[in-house]
């Protein structure tokens, strides 16, 4: 369980490389199958609109899965994540066109714990200019 990043190398304020994750209707169908969440709001436009949504929306858990990639790609070993939590504040709307939507994720080290040799990483996930996750943070054990 070795993180690639050394605890001593990072400081509060260290920014992790930001990433953008595209999401289309096809992505959502694939994620539905892999996760077992077949709620029609994630693939059926008619149903989504009937329950008051602007269009089909991405699974919150899909967005959560993408956001943590900024941390796992940085740390090297995904097992270095010891805690991860988010609040689902706004849905990621995925139109049925060639583009779909994009989830933009940035992250920085917000606190260090010398005893546990862990850092708290605060994440910001946006889509279409709107914040889609709130209170999004991970605790990561570094080398």
């Amino acid at each position, binding site marked *: *369980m*070795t993180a690639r990043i050394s605890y001593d190398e990072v400081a509060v304020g260290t920014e992790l490389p930001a990433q953008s994750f595209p999401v289309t209707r096809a*992505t959502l169908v694939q994620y539905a199958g892999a996760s077992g969440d077949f709620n029609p709001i994630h693939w059926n436009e008619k149903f989504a609109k009937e329950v008051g949504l602007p269009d089909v929306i991405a699974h919150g858990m899909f967005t959560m899965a993408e956001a943590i990639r900024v941390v*796992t790609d940085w740390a090297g070993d*995904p097992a270095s994540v010891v*805690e991860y939590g988010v609040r689902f504040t706004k849905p990621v709307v995925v139109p049925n066109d060639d583009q779909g939507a994009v989830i933009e994720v940035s992250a920085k080290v917000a606190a260090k714990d010398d005893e546990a040799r862990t850092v708290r990483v605060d994440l910001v996930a946006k889509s279409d200019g709107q914040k889609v996750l709130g209170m999004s943070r991970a605790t990561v054990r570094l080398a």
Partner: protein
Amino acid sequence: MALDQSFVGRTYPATDPYEVGREKIREFAEAVGDANPVYRDPEAAKALGHSDVIAPPTFVFAITFKAAGQVIQDPQLGLDYDRVVHGDQKFAYTRPVRAGDRLSVTSTIESIKSLAGNDVLSVRGEVHDESGEHVVTAHTMLVARAAEEA
């Protein structure tokens, strides 16, 4: 209608073990577009000290959410399942989920609140492997939106 507070603290029986397969992990990693070899290549996983491929951090939700279904669909609790949305989610890991794990989930209702007519339900799912070792705890907050006036 506000949910019955006496359900707070109720623990449901542990689920039958879910066996985590390498191909299921690969399928999940592909679905989220994550090419990290530690999710597909046992040798890459071993190089990092794991005994087999591990699962991405949020993979376990599929198992804990299914387990939480016992709570959500408990007819005695009477949650309006059609109006439920996911409010927040947190995981605390003792170790990563890996291929070959046989995982059981024990769900407990942690709190029930009523906020602006919405029912807010927090469920804790404790995930253990076959030897009884703790793997991860999932905290799931669900919101049942208030029904519109008929």
